[in-house]
């Protein structure tokens, strides 16, 4: 959701065109330094481009936070195979809706980011793998691609530089797992969306077995400002090792939910109370999931921390995809946990044993608990099953399901016990006294 005016605390960099009239058009884009970064990149060597991205301390905005410049440097430029640039626009993490706005309001910045990546690794084709539910965005992107082609910014001999590169959109079919980079590549190739064995990593063997740069939409959108203003300037916006700004999608029980562009390391409590207008109805903050539903939940008292990859890791959670889910005191944590686990049970691709069976098991036990049909030992079963999944599944989806399950029962054990024993849980207490 886009508010008419940015919040004063916002640092408007990636979102600077969002509120311009006709912001998605190439005219608006070109009038606001559009494709200047790419023109600059054309004059740079691939090594210089990658060096600049490294200097920016840009880390992947999809969730894992891997340094982008380093990722690009792994692509073997002298490989005789064709190289590909793939944008992960499968934004599927519950609580996350930032890439959607970038593609809706500023599609050309994604194209320009991909063009610069293509220049850096000598790729000739790029794909935007976009979740099926974003059908309306495919039209916007296809229009932007067509505009860029007409302006000689895509296609053969781009701007007379001799560089050939084109971009194609590819729709997903409704699978969370296809946001995992190797499952995305399988799906892109027309196969079943299950993850691949790594190594080899996509940088050496990605799309169609060829070297591939694969980044999140927001990551690509961060590249043009880096090239234009220099990596150091971008890095300076954030905290050490966490360069730049970040689009946070704040949802849940706040007065002003929405997507806000804030510097890395912005304080989480300030984010909730200042930027998002505070907790809905003046109620007490109970818990926050800081980076999309797969991240361990934080209790209200744990939320006074800077939002960057490293600070959240120290707090036992993750920055993830920047989806901040705020829960107030009326939230039943058993219900929330059950809802999250039902999502992962539904979205597990089923390829490996612990994720396939574990997510089903957790979802079933938590749903029973939620509905008051718990049995003695259920909480221990949830804990053991989640622990047995953790770190043992083929891809991170198992962890994504196990981490919320574990953190919910660890941090809100009382509420689970209450459900088990038929007592009112904390949320029901609040409701009773309201």
């Amino acid at each position, binding site marked *: 959701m886009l508010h008419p005016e940015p919040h004063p605390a916002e640092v408007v960099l990636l979102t600077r065109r969002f509120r311009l009239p006709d912001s998605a058009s190439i005219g608006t884009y070109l009038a606001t330094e559009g494709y200047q970064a790419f023109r600059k990149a054309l004059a740079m060597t691939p090594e210089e481009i990658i060096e600049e991205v490294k200097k920016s301390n840009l880390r992947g905005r999809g969730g894992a936070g891997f340094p982008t410049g380093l990722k690009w440097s792994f692509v073997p430029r002298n490989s005789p195979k064709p190289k590909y640039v793939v944008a992960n626009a499968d934004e599927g993490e519950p609580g996350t809706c930032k890439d959607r706005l970038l593609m809706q309001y500023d599609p050309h910045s994604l194209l320009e980011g991909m063009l610069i990546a293509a220049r850096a690794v000598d790729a000739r084709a790029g794909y935007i793998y976009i979740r099926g539910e974003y059908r309306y965005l495919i039209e916007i992107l296809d229009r932007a691609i067509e505009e860029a082609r007409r302006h000689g910014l895509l296609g053969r001999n781009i701007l007379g530089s001799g560089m050939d590169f084109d971009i194609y959109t590819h729709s997903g079919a409704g699978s969370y797992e296809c946001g995992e980079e190797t499952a995305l590549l399988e799906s892109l190739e027309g196969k079943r969306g299950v993850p691949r064995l790594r190594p080899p990593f996509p940088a050496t063997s990605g799309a169609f077995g060829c070297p591939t740069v694969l980044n999140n939409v927001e990551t690509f959108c961060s590249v043009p400002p880096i090239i234009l203003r220099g990596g150091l300037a971008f890095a300076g916006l954030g905290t050490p090792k966490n360069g730049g700004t970040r689009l946070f999608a704040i949802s849940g029980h706040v007065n002003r939910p929405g997507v806000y562009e804030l510097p890395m390391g912005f304080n989480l409590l300030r984010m909730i109370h200042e930027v998002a207008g505070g907790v809905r109805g003046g109620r007490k903050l109970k818990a926050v999931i800081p980076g999309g539903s797969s991240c361990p939940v934080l209790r209200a008292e744990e939320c006074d921390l800077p939002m960057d990859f490293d600070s959240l890791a120290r707090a036992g959670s993750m920055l993830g995809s920047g989806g901040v889910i705020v829960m107030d005191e009326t939230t039943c944590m058993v219900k929330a946990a059950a809802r999250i686990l039902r999502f992962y049970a539904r979205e597990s691709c*089923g390829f490996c044993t612990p994720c396939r069976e574990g997510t089903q*098991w957790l979802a079933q036990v938590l749903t029973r608990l939620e509905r008051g049909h718990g049995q003695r030992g259920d909480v221990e079963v949830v804990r053991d099953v989640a622990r047995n999944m953790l770190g043992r599944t083929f891809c991170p989806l198992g962890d994504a399901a196990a981490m919320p399950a574990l953190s919910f029962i660890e941090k809100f054990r009382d509420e689970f016990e209450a459900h088990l024993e038929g007592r009112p849980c904390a949320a029901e207490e609040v409701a009773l006294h309201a």
Partner: protein
Amino acid sequence: MPELIRLTIDGRSVEVEPGTLVIEAARRVGVKIPSFCYYEGLSLAGACRMCLVEVEKMPKLQTACTLVATPGMVVRTDTPQVAEARRAMVEFLLTNHPLDCPVCDKGGECELQDMAFRYGAAESRYLEAKHHVPEQQWSPVVFYDRPRCILCYRCVRVCDEGMGVGALGVVNRGGRSEIAPNRGDHLECDECGACIDICPVGALTSGMYRYQTRPWEMNHVGTICAFCADGCKTTLGVYHDRIMRGNNRDRSGLNGEFLCIKGRYAADFPHHPARLSRPLVRQDGELRPASWLEALSLVEARLREALAAGSPIGVIGSNHTTNEENYFLQKFARQWLKTNHLDHQRTGDVPALASALAGREGTLASTEDLYTARAVLVVGADLAQQHPLLSWQIRANWRHHRARIYVVTTGPVREDRYAARSVRVEPGGELEGLLALAEALRAEPDLVILFGDAIQGEDVARLVAFGDSLGIPVKYVCLVDYANSRGAADMGLLPDLGPGYQPLERPGMTLEEMLECPDLAVLWVVGANPLIGRQRPPSRFLLVQDLFLTETARLADVVLPAASAYEKDGTVTNVCGEVQRLRKVVAVAGVKTDLEIFSLLACRMGFQKDPVGWETVLREIADAVPGYRLSVPALLAGAPQRTHFASQASSSRRGKVRSARDTLFTSGTLGRFATILSQVREAPGALYRG
């Protein structure tokens, strides 16, 4: 030789070649790491997560089946953490598993049972309703029970990679994931049952074996498949003297675990209701049952009359009888009946190849060579249909060693899909078609050439001349049709060549000539059906030995019921010239082996004093047949023995060669009496011809 990598597994030091997986390295030092989805020879999956191990300096447990050994790696499989992880995986696998072990075909030989026993917890904590899906039948052969499936994807991979068919895939996701035929609700495939055999649990079961018996109630006997010439070892499960199934799970034999539908499921023909169990004698124009004594007396009398009168006697041998039987039959004919009118239905021109390669050691390709050769050339044959093992070997060679495959055929074949080059020719244009490949073949380090009946007579010598012109080591396989087609030729069931292709001074009549000859006093047909679609030959007396009342047997004066390959001991020689041992699997009442029949007749006629056993004849073969100087003890122990063409080998100048062109689902007369072969649809034909 690349430098070896040293690593430590459970405190034991082991050296392995670079690229070795930890699970394989562990096996070398006797450390068994459990796994379901890991399967030697197939692509890696990493799906079941049973093989998790601890590795120093790695924070998380690692799957030993995907982890490549590196120098100095320290692996532990004996820690509480690993034990706990294995227990957890078994627990996960059992959550939705029906635990219907008491009625499951796999009970007693189930990998999940074994794993649960060895690594699992004693109790289940799973209280939720198990997910149920009704069982599905995909073909007469293959049934799928989703609840039992642990989704290790072995079936999908063996079908795609091993068989080159790719009939199976996965549908749905998460806990609802299922294996499914890629054609929707049914299979269009080789019906080979590799998916069933490779299934670690009872999810895939066969229409022939399911719910028939328990694994531990059967005796298992390893013998050689009775159908095509590839000579696969099949281990037949026998319950109450009935053959229930075939498989080769222990990977012994030159086929490893490979078998096609015939080797796995077609071994029920010995028990067919139409099987002959008593001799038949023609009386007043009709065949009526008779005792062995009566029937043999009649045969003896006719043979004595013919000998006394000096009338010619003709003998037609079999593609299915053992080397001992074939050798003894030619000895009977030539030595005792004084006739060279001896032949069999020739399906490939082995004599021509023997002559072209006479005395040249190391020019016959073995089954193993097809897996190791750097290049393979297929001329005029559809291997996937007629030689499924050879096709499998070549495919595995391409997958594992990137061998280059070349094809010259008149129509599309499965090898086209991975061939470096395929050349299409008009029938008869095969030799000419080769020339297009000459340049590419010259660049290969070595080559195996397989050729079918399109190349025969003089063309075989031309083919070998072409091979010689390439300037690289070349080995050959002359493709023949049936289980002992090669042995029949090697043992001299030919009108102008004795055992080992030694030329005879007075050539006899060919099969065709015998069938037309009005002067024959006796025509003796052993295990062959040359009269299909023909009139009774003009010979005065027609004797037939066979399993069934074939078109030929119906016209006979005396029919003697013979034992099948699964009812006798002996040796057979496969298409690559490898001699292997047949073992008696079952006894069928009323029949005698062909060797018993020959031997009894020989005794009655005073040619020998006592009946001979097959081992005596085998020793005689080893002594007397050029190229068959093989190790009898090794053969008896089950090791295939390679033969070669002796230097005096000569080409047969007489008679034609014609393959019966059986498909995967036919096999001459025998195929008609195997239940499953009459039930499966000829889908492969449609698949590979289009």
